[in-house]
């Protein structure tokens, strides 16, 4: 993990510009939040292929579906709460059911939105999106991975959802690192505990891993950047090899990463899982860092959870 920080929404915007150069069929839509989702980086380069739909997420999503039906590859971006929440029926009926090639970016996911508070802190999007047939769900942990996922989504013929964050977080991977879209990334071989993390919580888990090592506790951290499909193999392996299983996410513990892992465990290798995340409540205003602490999904909380009897 590096000291340098960048928000995954910024990486998303930069990646759009890159893929936009290579593929002329890519079009980008936004709902008056291009400056925030960072799709404006694409807009500056390709104004003819950028469409601001105004503050109308439902219209944006279905317009993207219509474009996709004619061979375009639309990336529709807005805050996660308005994409996955407000336009859920449009994503379900106009994109997923006909399996149209639309890429949806839900930015500003989780409590780390910060000061805007509960109305803007999406804690249910993974739950909503993973339940849709044909949908793939990605939750990148850093800059390098976000860029790789944007490229990877072009290899997938069908709907994809990518969840990005407002808060800048540590860059974890080396420039140009490649991933396997059906897998996860494991850090360390520790057997004292496994921490499954996704999105912004991965860097927190990696910090915790270092702290715990100082205390002689060896854990493995697994970056679950693909939530659907999920890497079942790594989950079962961790359940077999490690003493304790923990999941951590900036999302409701109902229906998020923890639930997805629990689903795998209960079918493949029953084991106890401790779920860290937002405990079935709405978020609140505050600084992103303060909120990570308050909701017990930061480095300290992970360290304590691993040490707990």
């Amino acid at each position: 993990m590096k000291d340098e920080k960048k928000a995954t929404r910024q990486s998303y915007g930069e990646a759009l510009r890159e893929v936009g150069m290579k593929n002329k069929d890519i079009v980008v839509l936004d709902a008056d939040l291009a400056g925030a989702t960072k799709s404006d980086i694409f807009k500056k380069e390709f104004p003819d292929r950028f469409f601001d739909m105004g503050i109308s997420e439902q219209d944006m999503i279905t317009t993207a579906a219509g474009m996709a039906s004619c061979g375009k590859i639309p990336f529709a971006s807005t805050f996660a709460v308005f994409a996955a929440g407000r336009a859920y029926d449009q994503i379900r009926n106009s994109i997923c059911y006909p399996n149209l090639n639309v890429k949806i970016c839900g930015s500003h996911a989780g409590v780390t939105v910060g000061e805007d508070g509960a109305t803007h802190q999406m804690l249910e999007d993974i739950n909503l999106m993973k339940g849709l047939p044909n949908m793939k769900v990605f939750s990148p942990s850093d800059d390098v991975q976000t860029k790789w996922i944007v490229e990877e989504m072009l290899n997938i013929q069908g709907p994809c959802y990518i969840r990005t964050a407002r808060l800048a977080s540590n860059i974890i991977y080396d420039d140009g690192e490649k991933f396997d879209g059906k897998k996860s990334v494991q850090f360390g071989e520790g057997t004292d505990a496994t921490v499954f993390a996704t999105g912004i919580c991965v860097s927190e888990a990696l910090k915790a891993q270092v702290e715990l090592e100082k205390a002689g506790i060896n854990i493995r951290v697994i970056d679950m950047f693909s939530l659907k499909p999920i890497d079942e193999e790594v989950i079962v392996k961790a359940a077999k090899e490690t003493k304790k299983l923990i999941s951590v996410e900036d999302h409701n513990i109902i229906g998020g990463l923890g639930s997805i892992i629990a689903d795998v465990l209960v079918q493949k290798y029953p084991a106890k899982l401790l779920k860290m995340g937002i405990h079935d409540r709405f978020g609140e205003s505050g600084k992103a860092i303060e909120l990570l602490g308050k909701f017990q999904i930061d480095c300290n909380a992970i360290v304590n959870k691993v040490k707990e009897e």
Partner: protein
Amino acid sequence: MKITENDIESLKGISKEIRKSIIEEVYSAQSGHPGGALSATEILTVLYFNQMNIDPERPDDENRDRFVLSKGHASAGLYATLAERGFFDKSELKNFRKLGSMLQGHPDMKHIPGVDMTTGSLGQGLSAANGMAMASKIDKRGFRVYCLVGDGEIEEGQIWEAAMTSSHYKLDNLCLIIDNNNLQIDGKVTEVMSIYPLKEKLQSFGFEVFEVDGNNIDELITVFQKAKTIKEKPTAVIAKTIKGKGVDFMENQVSWHGKAPKEEEYKLAMEELNK
């Protein structure tokens, strides 16, 4: 293109065949929505047999004109029209809404030749049609897009988001058609949730608006021809129709929105349509 008396008579004959197929479908399935399919029969006939640039042999042609049945519950009408036009065999219609059939309750673009958009959840079709019209312009393909909405359907807010988009992006290759039969499930549109004044609403959203007897083939052709000449703005056709049109006991009866005829009713309807 000059339209002759013979053309009109031939189109009238086709719409009669489509009506018969609608009744056959709904009767066979003992399920479906005859009222709104019958009100839109002339609109479907004129689009698919006179106006649209389509080829049943090449249903995926990238340059074809598109049609979005936003009021997806009128699927029996669309399927009857597509079969009549040769997109698939008419014998398929008897499987409408049955287990294992490609003819799903609401239009499914993935499995039915000729269906350009999956619809059913009301209020979404105009947005999809806009997306198609925008794609046509981006790629300079020049195809036109038609979108048929129900009058009750436009109570959905998304329709008005989409109407702004049609106008903002100057989609002159888009034609919105409102099947204005003035009935929705719970009663008269004017009593459930009024959409009026409709012409003024659409005009204020930036549409060039035409009003027409939506069950009159002659008038529909004239208006669609005119719509093609409008530049820099989208067009809207308010088609005044009769729900259940063509089957006497179904006409203007809200109860026939989503109900299948029993054997006696079926015979009566077919007798009238075979006259």
